[in-house]
Every structure is written in structure tokens, then in C-alpha cells.
């Protein structure tokens, strides 16, 4: 690939000395590389074993089944101090995934809008988004997180004077509290109804696409889908005991109780990740759109497509092929960057593992676990995005 004379196939050119034979030389180089690596690894590991023995630190993952003893402020699954380190770490992983996935979704939406706006003919839109993108891209995320955290905790009122923009919605420096539905029997009926509605809506969407492919006839999609969802929900409610209870957050003692709690730390990390990443995605979108041949714009216009339609049907699908690969790495960056939440008190994987490390002394195990989890999520993200990329690329002739 790089240089055939080194890597093989030309043994016949040998001038006599055995190391002039490329195949032999290649083998020698690799063998010595292997030896060096193996020796270094042996050296490091033997040091580790000596050090750990000297410090009486047991090696192994047994600590995962021991009682953790510490609480976590933001948990997606039930967790108390009586649960194990293993469960605590799972809570950490879920927190990492929770903030990352929501940030990815929001950053994509904002990034696409900003990226298109960057190419707007409107002077103001073009330049305001440009300032936004330049600022976000050139200032470290950690600094932005510190700033947002200071702003959110200092500028928002305390729990007793919380902002109350709508009934049951409270915003204070404790976080955002939203009303939710109590999980009673009726709640499950409602969910089941919505699910049936969703299935019907998906069926309709697939069906209309098929009809359009075969006959060119375009049937409405948006309204029927919303309608089906609504009907499903309504049916579920009618069939059930009709006893929906809204769980309203209310100030009790120090803090709000009830409803959904979104902590300040989560909001802050989400805000930081979304604004930061959206700027990078915007640049990907912009360069993707610019990469589409001008003739495509012109052809779309001459077919009489409106600018919005030509953007949606002609330009973006082609631009996607350029946009997806760099955006994949942005998605992975979001997951990795979410680890900075540790600096502002968000209990993500790194934070929980750090606490476990400190309490058990199992530094090697805890840091390896952190790395393994990230390795796994990064690899699966990239697998998924490669699959999606391949699907998009297939649309090409």
C-alpha cells in the first residue's frame, strides 16, 4: 500500500544479506516492536502489582457488589445508599446517556437551523448566527459550563420565590419542576391508547409513502398522524377508569415535591452541551449545503419548487452525505463532553466512578470501567451512524 519494496513481494530482488529481504525485515521490525511493547507492558504491570501489594489494595471487581453507602442527587432508576456500587455506576451511566441523548437531539435541531441561517441572504440573520458560531467554537466548553452554572444559580431566584410561568411549572435555582401524570391504572390505559395510535400513525406514514412511490399521489401526513395519536389517547382514556391525576409540583418545606424535577446541574450541562455542539453541527450543515452543486438549486427552482421544498427535497438529502460523517464525531463528542458535568456537580458516570474510586481505592478498576463504558457507547454510536450513513448513501445512483 505505502511502499511495496518494504512490505513484501520483492524477495527476488534480494542482494544476499538476509535483512535486505523485505519480508524478513518486515518480520524483524514487527517482532522487535512486539518485544518492546510486551516488555513495557510487563514492566508497567509488574510495577502495578508491586505497588498494589505494597498498599494492600486488592485487585478485582468484587467491590461492585458491596454496599455503596452514598446517595446520588439525580437518578433515573430507583437507587438508595443501600444499593451496591454496581448499581450506583449504572445510575451514573444512565445519567450520562440521558443528558447526552437529549443534548444530541436538541443540538441537531438547533445546529441545522443555525447552519441554514448562516447561509441566509439576510444580513442580520447571517451575521448574528456567525457571531454565535464563532463564539461557541472558540471558547472552551468547561468555561462555558462554569459560566452557565454561575448564571443559573445566581440569577435565578431561590425555591421560595420560584418563577411560575405557567400553572405547575416552577423555575428556580433548584431546577425546573414540571407537572406530570400520576402512574395509576388510567395512566397505563392512556399510554396503551397512545401506543396504538402511534402504531396506526406509523402504518399510515409508511402507506402514504408507498402510494406516492407507485402513483405519485401525495396524501396528507402530518394531520392524520396527529389525529391518530389523539384518537388513540382519547380511546385509551375513555376505556379506562377515566381517573387521570395530574401530579403538580408544590413547595413543601425546603423544596418542591411532586412532578418531574429537572435539576439545575442537568439543565446547565444540557444548555452548555447544546449551545456548544450546535455551533459545530451548524458548520457541518453549512459546508454540506455549500457542497451541493449550484445546478441542483437551479434545477429545483426551474421545476417550480418553492425554496423551502427545494431545500427539503433536493438540497438537504444530498448535503446529508457530506454532513453525516463529521456530525457522527460531534455526537460522540457530546457523549464524551458530558463527562465535564463532574465539574458542576452533575452525577454522571465519571462523577459516580470517581466517588467509588475514592471510597474503595480501586483506581485501576474504576478508571478502566469508565473507559470501557465510553468505548462501548462511542463504538455503538459510530456503528449506528455508519449504518445510517450507508442507508443515505444508497439513495445515490
Amino acid at each position, binding site marked *: *500500500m*505505502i*511502499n*511495496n*519494496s*518494504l*512490505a513484501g513481494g520483492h524477495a527476488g530482488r534480494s542482494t544476499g544479506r538476509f535483512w535486505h529481504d523485505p519480508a524478513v525485515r*518486515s518480520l524483524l*521490525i*514487527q517482532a522487535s*516492536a512486539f518485544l518492546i*511493547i510486551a516488555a513495557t507492558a510487563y514492566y508497567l*504491570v509488574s*510495577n*502495578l502489582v*508491586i*505497588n*498494589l501489594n*505494597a498498599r494492600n489494595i486488592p485487585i478485582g471487581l468484587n467491590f461492585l457488589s458491596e454496599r455503596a453507602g452514598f446517595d446520588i442527587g439525580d437518578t433515573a432508576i430507583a437507587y438508595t445508599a443501600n444499593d451496591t456500587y454496581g448499581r450506583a455506576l449504572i445510575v451514573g451511566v444512565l445519567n450520562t446517556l440521558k443528558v447526552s441523548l437529549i443534548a444530541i437531539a436538541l443540538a441537531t435541531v438547533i445546529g441545522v437551523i443555525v447552519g441554514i441561517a448562516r447561509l*441566509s*441572504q*439576510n*444580513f*442580520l*440573520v447571517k451575521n*448574528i448566527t456567525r457571531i454565535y458560531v*464563532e*463564539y461557541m*467554537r*472558540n*471558547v*472552551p*466548553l*468547561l*468555561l*462555558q459550563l*462554569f*459560566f452557565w452554572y*454561575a*448564571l443559573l444559580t*445566581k440569577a435565578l431566584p431561590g425555591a421560595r420565590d420560584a418563577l411560575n410561568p405557567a400553572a405547575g411549572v416552577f423555575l428556580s435555582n433548584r431546577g425546573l419542576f414540571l407537572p406530570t401524570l400520576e402512574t395509576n391504572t388510567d395512566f397505563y390505559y392512556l399510554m396503551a391508547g397512545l401506543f396504538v395510535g402511534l402504531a396506526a400513525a406509523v402504518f399510515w406514514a409508511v402507506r402514504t409513502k408507498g402510494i406516492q412511490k407507485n402513483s405519485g399521489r401525495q396524501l396528507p401526513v402530518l394531520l392524520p398522524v396527529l389525529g391518530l395519536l389523539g384518537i388513540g389517547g382519547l380511546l385509551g382514556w375513555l376505556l379506562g377508569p377515566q381517573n387521570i391525576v395530574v401530579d403538580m409540583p408544590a413547595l413543601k418545606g425546603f423544596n418542591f415535591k411532586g412532578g418531574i424535577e429537572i435539576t439545575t446541574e442537568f439543565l446547565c450541562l444540557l444548555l452548555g452541551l447544546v449551545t456548544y455542539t450546535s455551533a459545530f453541527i451548524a458548520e457541518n450543515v453549512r459546508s454540506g449545503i455549500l457542497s451541493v452543486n449550484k445546478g441542483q438549486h437551479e434545477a429545483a427552482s426551474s421545476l417550480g419548487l418553492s425554496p423551502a421544498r427545494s431545500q427539503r427535497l433536493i438540497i438537504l438529502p444530498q448535503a446529508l452525505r457530506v454532513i453525516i460523517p463529521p456530525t457522527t464525531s460531534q455526537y*460522540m463528542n457530546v457523549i*464524551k*463532553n458530558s*463527562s*465535564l458535568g*463532574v*465539574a458542576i456537580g452533575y452525577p454522571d458516570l*465519571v462523577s459516580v466512578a*470517581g466517588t467509588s*474510586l475514592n471510597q474503595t481505592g480501586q*483506581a*485501576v478498576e474504576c*478508571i478502566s470501567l*469508565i*473507559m470501557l463504558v*465510553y*468505548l462501548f457507547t*462511542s*463504538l455503538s454510536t459510530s456503528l449506528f451512524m455508519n449504518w445510517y450513513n450507508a442507508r443515505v448513501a444508497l439513495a445515490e445512483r
Partner: protein
Amino acid sequence: MAIINSQPLPSRPAPVNNSGLIFWLRSNFFSSPLNTVLTAVCLYGLWQVLPGLVDWFFLSATWAIYGPEGNASEITNQTVAACKEAGGACWSLISVKHRFMLFGFYPQDEQWRPMVTCFLLVGMMMASGIRRFWHPVFLLVWLATLVVSFVLMAGGLFGLTEVPTSKWGGLPLTLGMAVLSVAFSLPFGILLALGRRSEMNFIRTLCICYIELIRAVPLISILFMASFLLPLFMPEDLTINKLLRAQIGIILFASAYMAEVIRGGLQAIPKGQYEAADAMGLTYWQATRKIILPQALKISIPPIVSTIIGTFKDSSLVVIIGLFDVLNTVRIAFSADPPWTPFYMESYFVGAAVFFIFCFGMSHYSQWLEKQLDTGHKA
């Protein structure tokens, strides 16, 4: 049947003026209904935000220091009181704390040393941008700069007082880490990229594993590793300085990204170049050095610069393992001194400005350079 038009066609209207202010306004602000709406929305938004911002930033801002000279606590009290009364930004914070923000805990009397170091490093960074200097001798100048900077910072020679690395901080730390990271990660990245494209299976697998592993995990976990694990992997009588450990972590991290960027450049080189080099009878290293790398690096310059910018920004993560880079010093400047705690915006603005100036400068330089280097050949 012939259609004969006996009447002359009506004259078409004169073309719309396509120059001048009116045209510019129309095409930039009101070219379509949507655009007009957007303009209105933007103007309304700016109207809501800008006056307050300008007022905070300039009109109601306080710049001066108040209080008797030499009396630190009295100066703080009076200045903070003045800031609170004016109600705007308290830029006096910078006047009072700029030394700490720039140099951290470096001994007061010796702060000319980190200052000279900063000038040296920034000067060299700017000089590196001038193509006339792109010459092997320039690398020697860089080396000399690094040695001089190190001696200046550390002391212990030429009658300079020794200053332990635990007292280094602020801008020289950020700049120094960035420069060293680039100096090591670039060559290391090149080797990794070559290794990844090597035909030797073991070498290739090794490089792929390294690159993919490092790129999959967050920098903070690498820094934790450098901070907690590295000492465990070393023999007991060998300890490595905390600053150096962080530096090693950042270099290991940046190298993997550099390698991928350079691999992109290597892949872009047409196969004919490799074959031509082979046909000339060049050895692998000759071909790599004289034919392949110069072209590959040229193609990779923009992404290399983005990687450098990324490394520069990422170096701020050392805050989490307790080193005092610029981000940490601006943070401590307001947070560790109670009277100043309300002025976090001003402090973070300083930090953001420092990073912005360097990153923005580098990214625009790379765009300019890209045009300069464009020889018209599309690889």
C-alpha cells in the same frame, strides 16, 4: 396564417438599481416576505438585548480602582462599593486582579519571568505563522525558546530563584502546555498515522487500537488516568511531577486526533505518487520524507490547526485535576475572594476573551494559509 405584430412591443422597465445603499438594503434585508419578517424579528431581538448589554458593558461599567494605595482590603471595599453603585460591569476586578489572573500563584516579585515567557511564546507562535521562517533552523530557535522559557519559569540557574511547578499558573501554563502538546503530538501523530497505513499487520493493529481507544474516551478519563494511575504503574522510587503527568495525558490524547487528521492527508495522495517514488528507487523513509509527507501535511493543515485549537481548549480541563491554568485563575480570582464573588461575569469574560483571541486567531490564520498554499492542483 401569419401573425404579424404591427405594434412595437412596450419597453421593459429599467433594471432595478443593483448597486448603492438601497440595493444593498433590499437584497440583504427585504428580498422576500420571509426575509422581511426575519429582519423584523432580529431587529426586535437586538433592540431588546443590545441597549442593556451596551449599558452594562460600557456606560455603567466601572474601570478605576478606589481607595488608598497599599491597603488591599480598603481598596477592595471601596472599589466593590463603587462597582455596586454604578450597577454595570466591574472591570476594576481586572485592574485589581490581573496579575493573579495572568500568573496565578507565581511569586509576586518574580512575575516578570512568566511575563517574558508569555511574550516569548506568543512571539514565536506568531513568527511560526510567517512562511519565510519555515526552515529547519527555525525549529532550533523554537527549541531554544522552550529551554529559555523553562529555565525562566523554573529558575535555579543564573541566580534566578527556584520556583516549584506547583506555583506555576495562568497564561504561561496554558500556553506552555499547548505548545508542548503540539510539539509532541504532531510527530507522534505522524508516526501513528504512518503505522496505521503500514502493511505490517502487528504495527497496524497496534496503531488502530491506540487511536480508536483514545478517541473513544473523554480527555477527563485520560487525565484521571495520568493523575491517579500513572503513579501506580511507575516503580516506587520514581515520581513524576503532577504538571508533567497532565502534560503527558494531553499529549497522548492529542496524538490520536493528530494521527487521524494526518491519515486523511495521506489517503488523499494519489497512488501514482507512491508508485513514482517506488519507481525512483527511494526507500520507504526517503519516499515518506521527501514525497509523501510534504504533500500530506499540506493537505492536512486546516484540520491540523483545528486539532491544535481543540487541544488548546481542552487544556482547560486540567482545572478538574487541580492545576491552575487561565480558566482556573480567572475562576479563583472572583470565587476565592468573598467581596468579589458577585462579579463572575467579568472574570469569565476575561477567560473567554483569552481563549477566543488565540483560537479565533489560529482558525483565521489557517483559512488564510489554506488559500496561500493552494497551488491550484487538486489532489
